[in-house]
């Protein structure tokens, strides 16, 4: 077998291996995507209820004041940025990081809490103020992972190290569409709801007191938002990985087709050449 043919054969084999791997990764991502989506679904009732409850409390109290609600003079704004720990998920990380960079520049901020290795590495390399980082939250994060982040964030906020905290994460729209967003986390903006529901100030009893109830509900409101951001980012990551790996598999298939074609051409050329040699030899003998 001529040198050229052997080379082509080797390349086909190597690409086939890659194709198998990307195919497997695509399928794993698809399964995780489904599971992550059902987690988002399951987490929705709590998030919605706590938002509505906070709205009703705000509507029923004449004077709502709480450290987590007070707008302070903003000297230092912080951003919690959600990326993935692992790569091979297309432009997923690049997109949210670029978006975050733009937002930071616009707000003239440099303080960052990184959730995910990719974001941490990037911002640390660029010399941003990395206040905390959370790595290894897993492919299907539970609320405990979010709680740990929240505990840290609240400390930063209460100590006055940060006067405003925002979340930057990738929002899942559909399997083929995700977009980075920025949302304010602290101070809390209580949603005033859809008018008729919250306006009607029921005379609530507070057990034991409005202040205590606020003390309990507000950190959990923050927690629900962080958990949601975490889940959205995860769903988006799995979707992006599934797509990227699907494309890679497709490309590998195309390459194999092309290489097979050139392999056959080379083989035919070799046969033709041999035949010509034989025929010429026979002709010469007859001569």
């Amino acid at each position, binding site marked *: 077998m001529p040198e050229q043919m052997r080379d082509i054969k080797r390349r086909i084999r190597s690409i086939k291996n890659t194709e198998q791997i990307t195919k497997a990764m695509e399928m794993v991502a698809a399964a995780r995507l489904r599971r992550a989506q059902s*987690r988002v679904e*399951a*987490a929705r*009732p*709590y*998030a919605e*209820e*706590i938002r509505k*409850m906070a709205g*009703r*409390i705000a509507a*029923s109290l004449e004077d709502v004041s709480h450290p987590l609600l007070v707008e302070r003079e903003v000297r230092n704004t912080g951003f919690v940025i959600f990326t993935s720990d692992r790569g091979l998920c297309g432009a997923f990380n690049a997109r949210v990081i670029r978006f975050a960079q733009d937002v930071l520049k616009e707000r003239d901020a440099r303080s960052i809490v990184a959730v995910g290795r990719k974001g941490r590495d990037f911002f640390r390399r660029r010399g941003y103020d990395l206040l905390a980082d959370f790595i290894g939250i897993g492919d299907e994060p*539970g*609320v405990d992972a*979010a709680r740990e982040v929240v505990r840290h964030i609240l400390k930063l906020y209460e100590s006055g190290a940060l006067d405003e905290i925002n979340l930057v994460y990738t929002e899942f729209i559909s399997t083929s569409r995700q977009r980075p967003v920025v949302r304010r986390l602290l101070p809390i903006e209580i949603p005033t709801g859809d008018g008729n529901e919250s306006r009607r100030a*029921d*005379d*609530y*009893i*507070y*057990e*034991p007191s*409005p202040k*205590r*109830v606020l003390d*309990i*509900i507000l950190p*959990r409101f923050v*927690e*629900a938002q962080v*958990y949601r951001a975490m889940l959205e980012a995860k769903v988006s990551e799995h979707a992006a990985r599934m797509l990227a790996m699907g494309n890679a598999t497709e490309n590998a298939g195309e390459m194999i087709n092309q290489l097979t074609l050139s392999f056959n051409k080379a083989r035919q050329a070799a046969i033709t050449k041999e035949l010509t040699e034989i025929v010429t030899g026979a002709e010469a003998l007859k001569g």
Partner: protein
Amino acid sequence: MKSFKLEIVNPEKVVVSEEVESVMLPAVGGFLGILRNHVPIFGGLDIGVIRYRKEGKSHTVACNLGVFEMRENTLRVLADTAERGEDIDVLRAQEAKKRAERRLQEKAQDLDYVRAELALKRAIARLKAAAGEGKGR
């Protein structure tokens, strides 16, 4: 007996969503019994056992800290964790209880102490819920 809606939700999922006749829940100030047409109330939830009665049968749910709201005959409980009595892993709860007790005896620093105490409280609540006890009948 007239019923009302009970919803117990934790950040990860809905644990209970049922029509019930009565509920006893551990509020921060002590146990609170709730029946249909209770006045609107917001309250803090303590670690403990929520017990409710549905079609004459009583059920238990172990819960962690949280908030609850009764309004228009719907009682919503948002708890950090909530687990139906029958779903509780008794062995794990017993181990958690022992662990917490051991830590309490060692009497480490203050922070550890508080945390161990909470852990103990949670373990006891889970065991009670699993056994179907819970305070109040």
